């Protein structure tokens, strides 16, 4: 049976059962998955326990999920979040 994977920006990425998105990305050597709204600076895990909202990421099309709290699942689509993650709404 194939190892379970989730997709990070379209790339199949392995994970261990029970890991958070943030833990799985870090284990895969990926340290940033968001850019800040104003300066476009990279962001990843900071507090790791759901308090700081620094590790926001888009999960299955929903922006602003906390990577440290969302449990990763087979086939989950995780994408780098640019700014607010709602750029499609800009008028």
């Amino acid at each position, binding site marked *: 049976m194939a190892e379970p994977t989730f997709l990070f920006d379209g790339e199949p990425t392995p994970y261990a059962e029970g890991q958070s998105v943030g833990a799985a990305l870090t284990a895969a050597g990926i340290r940033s998955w968001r850019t800040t*709204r104003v300066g476009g600076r990279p962001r990843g895990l900071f507090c790791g326990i759901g308090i700081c909202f620094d590790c926001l990421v888009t999960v299955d099309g929903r*922006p*602003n999920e906390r990577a440290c709290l969302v449990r990763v699942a087979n086939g989950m689509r995780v994408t780098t979040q640019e*700014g*607010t993650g*709602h*750029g499609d*709404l*800009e*008028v």
Partner: protein
Amino acid sequence: MSDVVVVGGGIVGAACAYYAAGAGLAVTVVDRGPAGAGTTSRGEGNILVSDKAPGPELTLALWSRQLWHQIGADLGDEPLELERKGGLVVAATESAMASLTRFARDQQEAGVDTVPVPAGALHEHEPHLAPDLAGGVLYGQDLQVQPVAAAAALLTGARARGAQVRTGVEAVGLVRDARGGVTGLVTDHGTVPAGAVVNATGTWGGVLSERLGCAVPVLPRRGFILVTEPLPRVVRHKVYSADYVDNVASSDAGLETSTVVEGTKGGTVLVGASRERVGYDDAFSPEVVRRLAAQATRIFPFLARVRVIRTYHGFRPYCPDHRPVIGPDPRVPGVFHACGHEGAGIGLAPATGRLLADLLSGAEPGVDPAPYSPGRFLEVARG
């Protein structure tokens, strides 16, 4: 010795201090909390002419928005987060559109710039509006500020003109001379000698006026605001539903809600507005929040895809005749009121401060002060 002590460091007290100091008066501001922490911090920063029918409040609002422009020119737009964005009032039904059109026609005659927007053109102004609205009216004169930042900027401006600002100081009562005139303010941190005391305590103006021996009827009217996650610019104007105007003008004690939506410089979108007379009941109300969210989604369907990250609520200083209380109190020489602006305190603050400074310094007032006079309550009482 101060010429005047202003009680209240919210937006109205800050504007009073700014203009009184500008008129050459020696000013002390006291606030029992930090500056701008009362109702000033609980609204959206609306500077509206659009929601006001012709009358004394609109007269004050039209003058006040000019003064906001001047303040922006003097202190800079940035510290105030002053945005000259305009308002768009939308009607969901043909009958609401008909009454909005009549309302706007009367406003136009009173000096308000109004531009009717047919249903088919709404999306040119606000692309995210629901597709089935009946139309709207554009009000180019509406503005927005970040109210706490604006109050801080005005207080800073007042200090640059020599005013003193003392926070954590609560007003207790008056010192009066043998003829009854004011010679100072008693506080929980000693007495502040002054020839005049300004009651700029907003929603608490009723309470303070009793301590000063000249009660005015100002009561709390609670309102909630929802705050979304930060977004790109999704709403260009202040957008609100036509029924907001009726809610503002009503005196109903029960819960009334209408839809007011605006973006902020910080990226969050603010969603209001509720009105209810529940005293100073500070409890969270899931019912109000649910209604506000549902109504806003009716006007802006995209909001259903956006998260609310927090809510806040506060108490508007409601006056039964919906007019602010500005001017000298006829019962106690030296006491002036500048309170009771309900939901319009941010917008009306500069005109209030300027009018009060004119009355304090004996200058010719920029508008007729009679409609706002505290004396009007005594005339009613005498019958």
